[in-house]
């Protein structure tokens, strides 16, 4: 099976967030593989091991994403591709990223494309379905299990807590939800091997794209932190008195009940 994984390098949102110059300050911050993309990489490796074939991990971003691509290779992916847009693209949005990925993938004859269902930084969850639409292949989002038998694919997806079982066929794009698998940590031999695996770097030119073709459709004009929440009230006294007070406060002061 020819499997592609769409991967994003993201800011670790467990980190403290601060703003400087209208942007999230990223100096000294930890960067990781987007957690949902880790599920995608793991699933791709497992499917390849079961069905043979090849796993290629693709990322759109800057040179800095090489580190996360190497990690994916160390986990067990076979090849990595970095589409470096740092010099060509000043501003981008999901349209930009999906357009580039769609262009890259259109002649790759992918049987299966796996992405995370959302990136924890931007959080829009658009790129997967956008890419599928461009390639004119079916897609299934937020999957928690996938079985492939020849061309036939059986999937379980999470729909706001409910589980849907879906039948479809290759070629296909799916997006990973938590619960799909437990991503492995790269092993030491894996890390050694990853150094020798191919990591190809492409630019817009290589995809016959002009900057105008990928011009974003939306623009971020400001980024700010939410107002700091004031420390609340910890009630005192006997438990039943506290409970009475709490219910009263919710009813009369907060007016939520």
């Amino acid at each position, binding site marked *: 099976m020819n499997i592609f994984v769409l991967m994003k390098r993201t800011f670790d949102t*467990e980190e403290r967030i601060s703003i400087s110059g209208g942007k999230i300050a990223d100096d000294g911050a930890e960067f990781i593989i987007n957690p949902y993309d880790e599920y995608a990489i793991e699933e791709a490796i497992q499917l390849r091991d079961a069905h043979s074939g090849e796993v290629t991990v693709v990322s759109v971003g800057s040179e800095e994403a090489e580190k996360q691509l190497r990690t994916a290779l160390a986990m067990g992916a076979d090849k990595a591709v970095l589409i470096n847009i740092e010099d060509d693209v000043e501003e981008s949005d999901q349209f930009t990223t999906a357009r580039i990925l769609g262009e890259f993938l259109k002649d790759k004859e992918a049987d299966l494309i796996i992405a995370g269902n959302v990136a924890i930084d931007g959080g*829009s969850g658009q790129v997967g379905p956008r890419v599928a639409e461009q390639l004119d292949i079916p897609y299934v989002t937020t999957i928690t299990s996938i079985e492939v038998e020849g061309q036939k694919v059986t999937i379980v997806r999470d729909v706001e*807590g409910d*589980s849907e079982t879906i039948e479809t066929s290759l070629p296909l794009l799916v997006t990973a939800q938590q619960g799909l698998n437990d991503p492995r940590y790269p092993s030491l031999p894996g890390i050694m091997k990853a150094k020798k695996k191919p990591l190809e770097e492409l630019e817009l030119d290589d995809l016959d794209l002009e900057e105008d073709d990928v011009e974003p459709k939306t623009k971020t004009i400001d980024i700010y932190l939410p107002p700091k*929440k004031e420390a609340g*009230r910890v009630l005192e006294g006997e438990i*039943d008195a506290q409970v009475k007070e709490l219910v009263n406060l*919710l009813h009369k002061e907060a007016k939520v009940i």
Partner: protein
Amino acid sequence: MSKKILVLAEAREGALRNVSFEAIAAGKKLSNGGEIVSVLIGEGISSLSQELVEYGADKVVTVEHDKLKQYSSDGYAQALLAAIEAESPDGIVFGHTALGKDLSPRIASKLGSGLISDVTSIEESGGKLVFIRPIYSGKAFEKKVVNGGLVFVTIRPNNIDPLPKEEGRSAEVTSLNVDITDLRTIIKDVVRKATDGVDLSEAKVIVAGGRGVKSESGFEPLKELADLLGGAVGASRGACDAEYCDYSLQIGQTGKVVTPDLYIACGISGAIQHMAGMSNSKVIVAINKDPEANIFKVADYGIVGDLFDVVPLLIEEFKKIKVS
């Protein structure tokens, strides 16, 4: 200039979801006095049209087909693209629900348009619409604008108030015949795990349990409290990892992001990943044995105590209010 806005209505188990009305209200903000066209897709759903009108739709377009009984990206895309072609809207609003998240990027890609997802409020600044959305798991917000062309947004449930309902309001309701062909993904089975139809992302009240709940049966009093308040039960990752409950209930950075009016955290210590999923709730109540627990830092009201003492007492007290 007034604009025509198309909004997608969403039904679940024969009833319209609230987000359908919230989307109409969002559409009003985009329309600058123009027309709101609500699109209702499914099978045997036309009776729901009147409610959309009462919540502010100026026109309802229904697309009915037996292949639209259940949601599929292929079926809904065909129906919706036909409606978009018939109406030529200047803007589109979906709910940021499972359906909206699945379908909106595809429609945007097909139309070659931008899409601003998961909007929590809409402002006007210098004649331009500004969309505010949480990023970095709610730890920051961004303001976005559209660089011309179609305005397409999805709105997070529970954040934009619906317009007041106007009983008896009337508007044009038309049905659009669309030939639905070629569904490439087929739903074979649906297992309902979510609690009693109150969906976590739309719930006004959430009672959530953490490791402090100690067992699967420990969730019983939480469920009773949630049912009493017409809410849903949620959980921290700790409770899911310990197999006290299903992962479908997980709230947090991985898991669901919720913004109910009232969030009652029971036996949840308040790990940063959990806070990312609930800290924007309007009112937060924390119940925890450990007075040093992090959750008290974001809570509006806190009770230091054993949840198994506090929750049953809360149920009793709330019952009194419900009666009075």
